[in-house]
């Protein structure tokens, strides 16, 4: 059991070595200590009462399950009743009256949803920068991007502020920050998790998923928000490596990812995915059109309140013609068909989760945002493939030293159990690592590295 994991917390609650109120208090202390790290935007006022109720259940020997009393955070585009959502904008919407279904399911399982996390404005880019609230600090290197758009969720977990968190992912926004912060990030099959009361970027690319320390933690959170049990006896099956996913990758990425594949899945063959190589321009067009349509009113009435990068993308998206959109949609269908054909011969498809190490954060980017489309494509082109196809994909850390890097594991629709079974094998080899900046208040005795 990893000392930083949900499993460790749950065990300490069951054994009465710890309780949910003390767990929450440590998280709140971490929020205060990490104020300058800009991971957390707001606190949930009902959290203490929920922690106290969970503590009473443990005292009575009647916990609701493994999530009971666990302190979790959610991205600030997901509604939590009683708190406004900013969606990464300067100011919050009016106070939410209802929980999003995913949040309601977490709370019904006893989880203490105590904080809402910072993000790239509107979730529109994978960098995780926010000019309004400050950019969440990458605990591995403050000079580097945290990755996004669910940057605050990743930093909150990796820094030891929350036990796990929810993010949303329309183009890698769970898997990219999970990778850059050394966490497990799962983007489920499209439609597996209800997305009501969630601010979305597109019509059908957004997915809700967990960021966690361990594969089992991610699986537990997924099972809860999807209201579905995973087959824990699932096996990876026939594994292949998509060699096209390394095209354009930064120096060193292919070497470490292939070393990890060789160590965990020796003999996995390479396969070609020529249609998937077009994922970046296809994603750019679809996100541009959908986001400018969804936020057209915002652009007309409140453009000056937007960060420069979000504003520019919305404006540019409005100039994309229907013909270009139709061309992108056709290639999107071809990408899905290509993957469906591959998954007749193979069970899982491997590659890097991102194409570069955490990019350096330019001082101007902190103030105004970032709009380097080459960097965006290098960072997230591979993750785009899973959004465009709707297939499940998990990013799992695959290095033992240096900056984090992850393997991405994709599977057939609905086969999260198989994807996570493979991720568990990678985790057994490489394990979670604690970053240099770590508040460690989410578990007792957490000043020491996990064991």
């Amino acid at each position: 059991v990893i000392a930083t994991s949900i499993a460790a917390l749950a065990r300490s609650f069951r054994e009465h070595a710890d309780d949910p109120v003390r767990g929450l208090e440590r998280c709140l202390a971490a929020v205060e200590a990490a104020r300058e790290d800009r991971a957390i935007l707001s606190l949930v006022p009902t959290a203490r009462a929920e922690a106290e109720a969970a503590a009473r259940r443990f005292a009575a020997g009647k916990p609701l399950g493994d999530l009971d009393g666990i302190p979790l955070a959610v991205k600030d585009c997901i509604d939590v009743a009683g708190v406004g959502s900013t969606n990464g904008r300067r100011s919050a919407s009016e106070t939410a009256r209802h929980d999003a279904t995913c949040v309601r399911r977490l709370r019904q399982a006893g989880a203490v949803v105590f904080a809402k996390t910072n993000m790239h404005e509107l979730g529109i880019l994978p960098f995780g920068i926010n000019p309004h609230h400050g950019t969440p600090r990458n605990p591995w290197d403050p000079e580097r991007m945290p990755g996004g758009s669910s940057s605050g969720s990743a930093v909150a977990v990796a820094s030891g502020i929350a036990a796990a968190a929810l993010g949303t992912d329309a183009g890698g926004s769970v898997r990219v920050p999970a990778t850059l912060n050394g966490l497990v990030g799962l983007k489920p099959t499209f439609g597996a998790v209800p997305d009501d009361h969630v601010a979305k970027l597109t019509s059908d690319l957004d997915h809700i998923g967990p960021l966690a320390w361990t594969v089992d933690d991610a699986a537990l959170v997924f099972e809860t928000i999807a209201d579905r049990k995973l087959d824990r006896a699932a096996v990876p099956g026939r594994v292949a490596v998509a060699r096209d996913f390394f095209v354009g990758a930064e120096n060193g990425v292919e070497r470490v990812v292939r070393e990890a594949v060789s160590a965990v899945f020796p003999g996995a063959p390479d396969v070609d995915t020529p249609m998937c190589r077009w994922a970046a321009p296809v994603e750019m067009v679809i996100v541009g059109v959908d986001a400018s349509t969804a936020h057209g009113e915002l652009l007309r009435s409140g453009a000056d309140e937007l960060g420069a990068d979000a504003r520019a993308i919305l404006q540019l998206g409005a100039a994309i013609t229907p013909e270009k959109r139709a061309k992108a949609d056709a290639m999107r269908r071809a990408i899905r068909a290509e993957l469906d054909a591959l998954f007749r011969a193979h069970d899982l498809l491997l590659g890097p989760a991102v194409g570069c190490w955490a990019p350096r954060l330019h001082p101007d980017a902190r103030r105004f945002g970032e709009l380097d489309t080459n960097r965006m494509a290098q960072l997230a082109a591979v993750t785009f493939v899973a959004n465009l196809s709707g297939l499940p994909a998990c990013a799992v850390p695959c290095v033992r030293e240096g900056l984090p890097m992850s393997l991405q594991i994709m599977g057939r629709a609905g086969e999260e159990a198989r994807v996570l079974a493979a991720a568990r094998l990678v985790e057994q080899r490489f394990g979670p690592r604690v970053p240099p900046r770590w508040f460690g208040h989410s578990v007792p005795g957490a000043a020491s590295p996990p064991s």
Partner: protein
Amino acid sequence: LRWFARVTAIPFVRRLVVAKMLRDAGFDRMPNLDAP
């Protein structure tokens, strides 16, 4: 970037910029599977 955000508010400019960005991203070289 703030300057860029202001000039792309102009429709003519945004059409030019979109054309260049998509060309740079490889969109123009992508096979048009939507073509009749």
